[in-house]
């Protein structure tokens, strides 16, 4: 039914386009000068019909379920929910819905079956109403658009205004979604901090959120000091960047300046493939190859290391970030004008000197941008550390030790049976909030640096 509504709208759009275009053509055929081209008259009509109705349909679809459920609940026998808590009431509604969807378990009470039948009927009615509304409003808009066709009508401007509005809407939607996410996060974080003091979270050095299991145990024994968790993320990210930055930059410089065309055409696709490998595959690599290799190497020189070291997770994450940094740096280096290279070479600079003294400084903004983005990714990277890093938060900066990371903790806290009102679950939001803030600061910092260099080098 919904599909039918969409098809109807599409048809109306095409009809509107054709009608107005025809009308405009006939005005021109009468010898009158048109302000806008015929196709703009068509486009104006098409947009006039399409945009409002489409928005209407989407809003309808968002609200339809809630409204229909509400009507159905109102139609249930008086007092159905009287003695029940909110959880049990939701269960009943869910059961009725699943009966309506054809998934019947056991023999439900007859009043539930009846309610389900009513629900089906309401849904059908709602669909028909939707189609009818689409038809009526499309027809009205069509009529309105058709009436506006006139020699002096500025169809181009009007059509452009509608398109502009659409673009603004899309841009604003992205911003609002971001704000919404931040709000949700903030809300849960505040709830967490009502149970656990901010100071304990920020400065506590012990992280043991798994301990409170039953509700009456709340935070009695759980420890929510996030320092070791963040320390773990820092250790792993540092290892990763220690590998990714030098290797990535060297790769970019080599490809950009020294490699001949054959090598470049072989290496670039490989790097792109590397960038496209799902991180879970890197995770396997870390767990199955790198970690055992580190362990056996350490054993051979008589050092005992943990099976899931920060070195393994960070090292593999570093490999993941290499193409990221190298492609950013490569773009930045390529963007430096050829005349600067020539200028340095003509002064008798070697390629290396030219690279270090001229190309590199000129490319710094792009390179710094790439590196900071890589930092953000390292901090937020989840799959590799979930697979390869440890679960226990330790206060250590030894990369040969097993550490955990913020993302790992968030994942483990939210996996499995959780209810959203105990501090164990809520702490995940606090961690997420911190992660968000840190990345935000890094990005602001990145923009600052980039702008500062721009001023110097432009």
């Amino acid at each position, binding site marked *: 039914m919904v599909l039918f509504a969409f098809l109807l709208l599409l048809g109306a759009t095409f009809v509107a386009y054709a009608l107005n275009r025809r009308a405009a053509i006939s005005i021109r055929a009468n010898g009158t000068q048109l302000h806008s081209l015929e196709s703009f008259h068509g486009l104006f009509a098409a947009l006039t019909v399409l945009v409002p109705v489409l928005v209407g349909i989407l809003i309808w679809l968002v609200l339809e379920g809630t409204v229909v459920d509400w009507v159905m609940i109102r139609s249930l026998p008086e007092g159905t929910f009287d003695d029940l808590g909110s959880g049990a009431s939701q269960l009943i509604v869910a059961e009725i819905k699943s009966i309506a969807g054809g998934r019947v378990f056991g023999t439900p009470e007859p009043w539930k079956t009846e309610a389900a039948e009513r629900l089906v009927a309401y849904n059908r009615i709602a669909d028909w109403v939707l189609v009818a509304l689409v038809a009526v409003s499309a027809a009205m808009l069509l009529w309105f658009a058709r009436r506006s066709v006139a020699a002096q009508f500025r169809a181009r401007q009007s059509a452009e205004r509608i398109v502009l509005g659409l673009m603004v809407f899309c841009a604003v939607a992205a911003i609002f979604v971001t704000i919404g996410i931040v709000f949700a996060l903030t809300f849960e974080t505040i709830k967490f901090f009502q149970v656990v003091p901010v100071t304990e979270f920020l400065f506590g050095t012990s992280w043991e959120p798994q301990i409170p299991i039953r509700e009456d145990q709340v935070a009695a024994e759980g420890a929510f000091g996030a320092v070791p968790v963040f320390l773990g993320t820092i250790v792993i990210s540092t290892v990763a960047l220690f590998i990714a930055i030098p290797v990535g930059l060297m790769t970019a410089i080599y490809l950009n300046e020294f490699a001949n065309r054959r090598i470049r055409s072989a290496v670039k696709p490989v790097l792109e493939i590397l960038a496209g490998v799902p991180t879970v595959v890197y995770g396997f690599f870390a767990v199955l190859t790198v970690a055992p290799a580190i362990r056996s190497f350490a054993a051979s020189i008589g050092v005992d290391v943990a099976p899931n070291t920060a070195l393994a997770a960070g090292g593999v994450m570093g490999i993941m970030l290499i193409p990221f940094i190298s492609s950013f740096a490569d773009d930045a280096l390529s963007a430096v004008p050829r005349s600067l290279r020539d200028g340095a070479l003509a002064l008798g600079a070697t390629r290396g000197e030219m690279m270090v003294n001229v190309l590199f*400084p000129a490319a710094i903004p792009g390179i710094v941008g790439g590196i900071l983005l890589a930092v953000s990714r390292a901090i937020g990277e989840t799959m590799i550390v979930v697979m390869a890093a440890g679960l226990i938060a330790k206060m250590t900066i030894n990369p040969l030790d097993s550490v955990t990371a913020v993302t790992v903790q968030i994942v483990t806290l939210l996996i499995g049976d959780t209810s959203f009102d105990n501090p164990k679950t809520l702490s995940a939001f606090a961690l997420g909030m911190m992660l968000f803030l840190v990345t935000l600061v890094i990005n602001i910092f990145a923009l600052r640096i980039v702008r500062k260099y721009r001023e110097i080098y432009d």
Partner: protein
Amino acid sequence: MNDMRKIERDAKMAETKITARNVNVFYGETHAIRDVNVDIADKTVTAFIGPSGCGKSTFLRCINRMNDTIDICRVTGDIQLDGTDIYATSVDPVQLRAQVGMVFQKPNPFPKSIYDNVAYGPRIHGLARTKSDMDEIVERALRRGAIWDEVKDRLDQPGTGLSGGQQQRLCIARAVATEPEVLLMDEPCSALDPIATAQVEELIDELRQDYSVVIVTHSMQQAARVSQKTAFFHLGHLVEFNDTDEIFTNPKDPRTESYITGRIG
């Protein structure tokens, strides 16, 4: 008129700085320079003129081996600087380029301070031992580039902040800072306004005192104004090479004549 004669005499007295014999240049399959022979004198301005695409820049870039930086470019033949084959395996193009400076069509100061722009060449070639040595070199180069007075109070400001004409003179100063013997200029005024052009032309005339200057130009008036010798290139051939006033008043080759009278362009 007196002046003119003096210049001519100078040109005749000057000794040969660069000799090119049977030079051919290929870009992949494109044959850009065909059998060029030319003797370029010291302490003289030599102009290369010709329609665009005839190979002026290509030939100029042979003299400091900048063509080496283009993958597909191949140079054959013999080019000597003071009797040394510059394409010999024993010659390091990096050293050669310190001896043969180059100024480009578009001013290309580095995104560094004015001081660092000029100091760059001396620095990479280790020409200054102390800071005050370097200061001296920079000042001398900027004076020779006829821009010292305009920038002496803002040596630490970016070179890219200067006007086009100042940037080009800065680039000339940068090129002379490595104490070259030859100065190659590829259309150095084509991105400049008339006043800046006049300043640079005046500077070129002064530079003749110390260097062998080779200038590519698309403006015949400019060639006539600044050069003593002129070479006319056409489709990769060096058609005619002679004293500048000879070329402009009494061209031997019909192609030269058509070009300077504006029939080939």
